[in-house]
């Protein structure tokens, strides 16, 4: 099984025998070992309950592995605390399946939040928010409360928030789950643009339309274990 990154020699994400056990009967991940290169686009696929979301949570350090080692940019994340951990999270853009939007705030406020925590200038935040919402066809939703938006629109706001702070790593969970074909294409283009700009992009999905023609590496999970890691046959 080839789990070596091929795009670059510099490793962004290193997982060595990482496992996550929630309780005796719930083993979410089992001995995951994978290296993802800096600037690589990487797909994690598998059925529901395969462990894709848990894997993203471990990488974003929102959860700690029960056993094993996870390093981000060479730093073991379980050793990071306080300011250093916060700085790391600022460099990671995450779009979870459950969105984690503030439903009583506008789309613009939700996107801005990731830049506010790193004290970006207000005029720069306003410009970036406007640009991103335009790229995702959400210009008219700028001042709309996210609780009033459709699932698809909420998903795009989540994605905009994940990439707003120009992170070096983007983790996306089921980015096209609620989108039509045209919007899916726009979202994927945006993610590819971020990847071309140098960001490492990890996409967890079960939607084969987005990885069917990819030339990037694809890791398949099954019941918390790696089933296969292969390179896509796209161009």
């Amino acid at each position: 099984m080839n789990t070596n990154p091929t795009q670059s020699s510099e490793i962004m994400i290193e997982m060595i025998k990482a496992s996550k056990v929630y309780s005796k009967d719930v083993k979410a991940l089992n001995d995951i070992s994978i290296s993802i290169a800096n600037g690589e686009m990487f797909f994690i696929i598998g059925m529901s309950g395969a462990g894709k979301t848990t894997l993203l949570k471990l990488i974003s350090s929102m959860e700690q592995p029960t056993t094993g080692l996870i390093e981000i940019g060479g730093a073991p994340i379980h050793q990071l605390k306080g300011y250093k951990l916060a700085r790391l999270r600022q460099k990671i853009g995450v779009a979870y399946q459950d969105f984690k939007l503030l439903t009583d705030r506008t789309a613009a406020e939700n996107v801005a939040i990731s830049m506010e925590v790193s004290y970006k200038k207000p005029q720069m935040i306003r410009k970036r928010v406007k640009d991103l919402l335009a790229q995702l066809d959400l210009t008219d939703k700028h001042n709309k409360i996210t609780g009033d938006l459709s699932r698809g629109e909420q998903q795009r706001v989540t994605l905009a928030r994940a990439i707003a702070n120009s992170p070096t790593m983007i983790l996306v969970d089921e980015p096209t789950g609620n989108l039509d074909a045209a919007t899916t294409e726009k979202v994927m283009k945006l993610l590819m643009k971020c990847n071309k700009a140098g960001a490492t992009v990890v996409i967890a999905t079960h939607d084969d339309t987005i990885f069917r023609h990819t030339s990037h590496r694809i890791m398949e999970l099954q019941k918390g274990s790696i089933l296969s890691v292969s390179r896509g046959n796209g161009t």
Partner: protein
Amino acid sequence: MSFWFTVFRQVGRNLRQTWGSQLMTLLTVTLSVLIFAFFYLVYTNMLKWGDRLGDDLSLIVYLEEEPGPELQQQYIKKITTFDEVEKITFISRADAYQRFGKQLGQNQDVLDDLPGDFLPPSIEVIPLKSLRNLNQVKFFSAYLAKLPGVLKVQYGHEWIEKFYYFTKLLSIVMLLSGTLLIMTTIFMVAYTIRLTILNRQAELELLKLVGATNNYIRVPFLLEGLLQGILGSTLGIASLYLLFQWIKLHFSGPGFLNMFQFSFFPPVISITIIGVSILLCTLGSFSTMQKFLRI
């Protein structure tokens, strides 16, 4: 965007979101400070008044017979055996008659038909300051009453005793209101901050996710407690000052209250009460953060 700008914006947002409970907390803190400061003010004024009373304290020892020079020396010796005193004055029947006449002023003619020796001779004993504790004065009085030839000893004990118990009661009320101040400031602020934290659970989780530092998340809550302390205690002290001025204005002139010379706290006491309240509110907010804000 600076750290403090975002922190103050967050504080403003928190206050807007939970303004109802914030207002209730502010009122509670204000009332607690007002109640405590009121009793403390009354207590300190009563102590001052008590001090002034103490300055005038004297024991009058009424004698059966006018003491001769030798007996006077014996009485002086016996009195000073108990403790040193500030002054001992022997008052003869004639002196007592004269004094009484002076006290009667324009009505002294009522004494015209009375013999000049109808009042008993006495000894006026002014105890030392150190002896002016009520219990010691009681013992001293009992000691003097047992001396041979003494009819009775008078020092207005009933009145002084009542005043002593009144100041004791005030000190207990002050302690209770102080406890109320501590409880309400710490617990009410802690409760409000807890409500804010629960209200903002989703946002706090998101802030962690996008890389907000601990200070970014915690400082607004700490500032909320601080703000409650500053506003609540300042309002409490200001209300007491206004109340004090109102009482002074409306109850000045002859009357019961005029017997007391009420004065407001010196600035340093007001600042100390405000400072302690701020500290307690911040402590309340800090303790809640430690318990409920796991970052």
